[in-house]
């Protein structure tokens, strides 16, 4: 591992430590928390898209499983929130693994199709099973208790999420530099070549897909408890696209790019709210312009421009 590999992590942690004392009000604190939650999801998704070169257009579906596990199991069956969260993650992992094995023998657009299909089916199921999920209107989520201590205020949530984000950045940096990470990058470069040197391509792809899906599910649970309410929009196609966009705009295969992408795209709808009615047009235009002029994403493009490695 490079000597200064953790330099960026220290900066991230420093920013996270200072942020709650400089945000002007609770509106911005809420925005920061949602940015951090998205950043963790995007870190996981970037491992799949950026490093392993595989596309998922259905990640919001996995997020939905986590979120609804945390909503439905404690509400209807009295489960402990942590147990519900774990159950969501396990179900997501099993489902992702089950689906991934046959899909990952395919390539490119077929994979996009299969993940997209899976996401849409999950979303339709959430919308239709109204007796459990509240249907299109959504349902409230009980608060999260940790060892007899209620997680209620935004300040408490902030520290929990900041910790999760720091750990995720640290884990991603390590993973990329591990034999596992090198195998992922190898199969992104050339599957045949990596097979020749003994990388079990399908196994690695399944592993990273399951991992990023579980990430999404866990953060879905966190989102559900933090917001206190879940709606099917959390699991819809558009949200899947938003997540992929965060990865690509920030920069594929860039850990810090994931953070930048998550921060920008979480803030963007707030910034565009002033356009009244033109939000969709503005959002679409920004997506297109970014991709046309910076197809590699912000962080790698800027890093190349200023002559620094990522």
């Amino acid at each position, binding site marked *: 591992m490079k000597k200064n590999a953790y330099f960026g992590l220290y900066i991230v942690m420093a920013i996270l430590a200072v942020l709650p004392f400089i945000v002007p009000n609770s509106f911005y604190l809420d925005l920061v928390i949602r940015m951090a939650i998205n950043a963790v999801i995007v870190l996981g998704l970037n491992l799949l898209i950026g490093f392993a070169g595989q596309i998922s*257009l259905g990640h919001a579906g996995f997020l939905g499983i986590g979120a609804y596990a945390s909503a439905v199991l404690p509400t209807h069956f009295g489960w402990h929130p942590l147990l519900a969260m774990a159950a969501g993650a396990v179900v997501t992992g099993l489902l992702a693994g089950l689906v991934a094995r046959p899909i990952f023998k395919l390539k490119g*657009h077929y994979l996009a199709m299969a993940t997209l*299909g899976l996401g849409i089916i999950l979303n339709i199921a959430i919308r239709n099973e109204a007796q459990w999920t509240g249907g299109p209107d959504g349902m409230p989520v009980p608060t999260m208790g940790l060892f007899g201590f209620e997680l209620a205020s935004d300040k408490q949530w902030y520290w929990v999420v900041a910790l999760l984000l720091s750990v995720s950045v640290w884990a991603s940096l390590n993973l990329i530099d591990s034999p596992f990470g090198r195998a992922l990058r190898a199969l992104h470069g050339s599957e045949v070549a990596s097979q020749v040197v003994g990388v079990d391509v399908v196994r690695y792809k399944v592993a990273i897909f399951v991992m990023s899906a579980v990430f999404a599910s866990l953060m879905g649970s966190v989102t559900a408890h933090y917001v206190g309410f879940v709606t099917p929009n959390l699991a819809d196609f558009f949200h899947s696209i938003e997540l992929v966009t965060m990865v690509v705009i920030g920069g*594929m295969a860039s850990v810090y790019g994931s953070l930048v992408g998550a921060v920008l795209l979480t803030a963007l709808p707030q910034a565009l709210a002033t356009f009244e009615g033109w939000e969709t047009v503005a959002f679409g235009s920004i997506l*297109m312009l970014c991709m046309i002029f910076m197809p590699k994403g912000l962080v790698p493009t800027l890093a190349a421009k200023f002559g620094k490695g990522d």
Partner: protein
Amino acid sequence: MLAQFLQFLFSGVTVGATYALAALGFTLIYNASNVINFAQGEFIMLGGMLAVYFTQAGLPLPVALLLAILIPAIVGIIVEKLAIEPVKGAETVTLIIITIGASLVIRGLIQVWLGKNTFSLPAFSGDEPIQILGATLLPQSLWVLGVTALVVIALWYFFNRTLQGKAMLATSYNRVAAELVGINTSWVLFMSFAMSAALGALGGILVTPITLTSYDVGIMLGLKGFVAAVVGGLGNGLGAVLGGLLVGILEAMGAGYISSSYKDAIPFVLILLILFFMPRGLFGGKSTDRV
């Protein structure tokens, strides 16, 4: 029993023809450029919405319909020129996001211009249903099926009997080789976007009198068109048409016999099953990878 089955079949084939036109659009662009155009559904929406707008503005039906096909074709060309050509050879996921961006812009503009209401278009030759063995068939369904059949024949002629069509086919087989024999591949890309958009718009116009339209119908229609294209084996024109019909019929049968609230999920369940068991689609050929 039979009447009910026929009824589902009629509605399935009608919607399926729209999916088939959308799937043909996906196929044309995919063959010319390896791009999956996620804005395809918006061309379907544009066709329907513009047809409504121009007929309500008092234009005679044929003129309104012609404009409602021409304008989306021009929009398709603009998307290709401004957003696809400048990034030739970019990563798949980059291209996917660009086309999604384009679809948002198109949908957003229509929402601002024509609002969020649902619109309908009068059927081309009346609403008097035709009785067949106890089931009813709308005259508009015959329009949908007839025009789709004509389009398929015309496309077959274009790709097999004309130089331009063969140039497009050659480009889809091997771009570099096509350029070597003097085919202008950027013209091919240009044509494929214009034709895809026009096909999508045509489908949207034809089906609007039956299914109604609004600014946001493009997403689902487009995604189902994509499913149809993959069912038929991505890149295979005949497969796309059969895939579209199959998706439409299964959706109507599923909605009728199993559950109408899961209607929209049926195409996606189908595609997952097909990808698991026949990864190249029903009609896709074998392919090998180049290292």
